[in-house]
């Protein structure tokens, strides 16, 4: 009975979260049960109310009393999945930038036992991605490579999958956006079998406004360097 936990961190996503949940696939190949874990990261809008009104019995809502950032929210989702013995975990953005069918593409190598960790890469086939996003992402890929020593084509992807063994071993400590690079570090540190699969990126005005700006790259760089220097 393989179970999949889909973790969706959400901060002020009231406008789109119900559509994101509605568009999720009813089932995923190789998976018997799917639990959707929405982590409301201290939203000041009606994100939590929208989730509760979604009527989707697969959804579990976890609420942060205050905003802790993307890494904090993902860490909470992962902790919930561990507590409930998840066989597979997939992280998924709330802003509607992922194509629901890509969940199956990320899960497939995990279910087939070909990988412990899978990153859905938007840059293997970067159709529709604005050029400045491509440049920004490559910059962050380089930073991740120089700091953590592992090359990926999309270190900032929000669509990632992990098998049970990987879920038990990865230890996420960063609270903010830099967590995406920390996942790469953890894959390398734990010597997980790793795969990249191409995924689509659906860019709307909303997701472009919500997503990372290139200037955030500098903040991420500083936090990654500090983390590297002050690791305990």
């Amino acid at each position, binding site marked *: 009975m393989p179970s999949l936990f889909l973790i969706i961190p959400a901060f002020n996503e009231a406008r789109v979260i119900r559509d994101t949940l509605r568009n999720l696939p009813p089932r995923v190949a190789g998976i018997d049960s799917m639990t959707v874990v929405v*982590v409301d990261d*201290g939203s000041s809008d009606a994100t939590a109310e929208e*989730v*509760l009104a*979604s*009527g*989707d*019995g*697969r*959804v*579990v*809502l*976890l*609420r*942060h*009393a*205050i905003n*802790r950032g993307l890494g*904090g929210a993902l*860490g*909470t989702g992962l*902790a*919930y999945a561990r*507590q409930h013995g998840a066989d597979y975990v997939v992280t998924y953005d709330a802003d509607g930038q992922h194509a629901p069918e890509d969940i199956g593409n990320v899960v497939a190598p995990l279910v087939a036992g070909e990988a412990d960790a899978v990153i859905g890469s938007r840059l293997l086939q970067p159709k529709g991605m604005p050029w400045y996003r491509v440049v920004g992402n490559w910059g962050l890929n380089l930073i991740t490579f120089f700091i953590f020593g592992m090359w990926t084509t999309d270190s900032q992807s929000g669509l990632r999958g992990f098998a049970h063994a990987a879920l038990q071993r990865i230890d996420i*400590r960063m*609270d903010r956006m830099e967590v995406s690079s920390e996942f790469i570090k953890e894959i390398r540190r734990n010597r997980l079998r790793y795969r990249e699969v191409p995924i689509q990126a659906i860019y709307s005005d909303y997701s472009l406004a919500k997503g990372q700006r290139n200037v955030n790259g500098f903040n991420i760089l500083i936090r990654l360097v*500090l983390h590297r220097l*002050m690791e305990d």
Partner: protein
Amino acid sequence: MAIKLLSVLFALIAIRRVVVRYRRGGALTVEFVMWFLIFSGIGIVVFIPKVTDRFAHWIGVSSGFNALTFVAIAGLLYAVYRLLSRVQTVERDVTRLVRSQALMTATRVPPAPPELPPTSPPAPPAK
């Protein structure tokens, strides 16, 4: 002369804060002693610069001013490091607290009631 007066003024204000904080129980004795010595030192050293020249010679730089600058920068860097470590620890603790509360109050979304099949139109009244 102005710089001497400003240094003494700064040292007095800083010492006052250190003492007040210590009296209120906001600092350990060891912290109090350390900061008291540092700020007193600043207030005193501006009047006897020869002392700093001797110190400079001892640590191997050319003048007392250079030696003080060197020590001040090293001290500030260490203070920033300690501060950042402390902030990082506090941030992690806050996240841990928020997380444990979120996990304890997990809510399963109630499923929407199944849609009922359309009811047949009411039969026309018998004539």
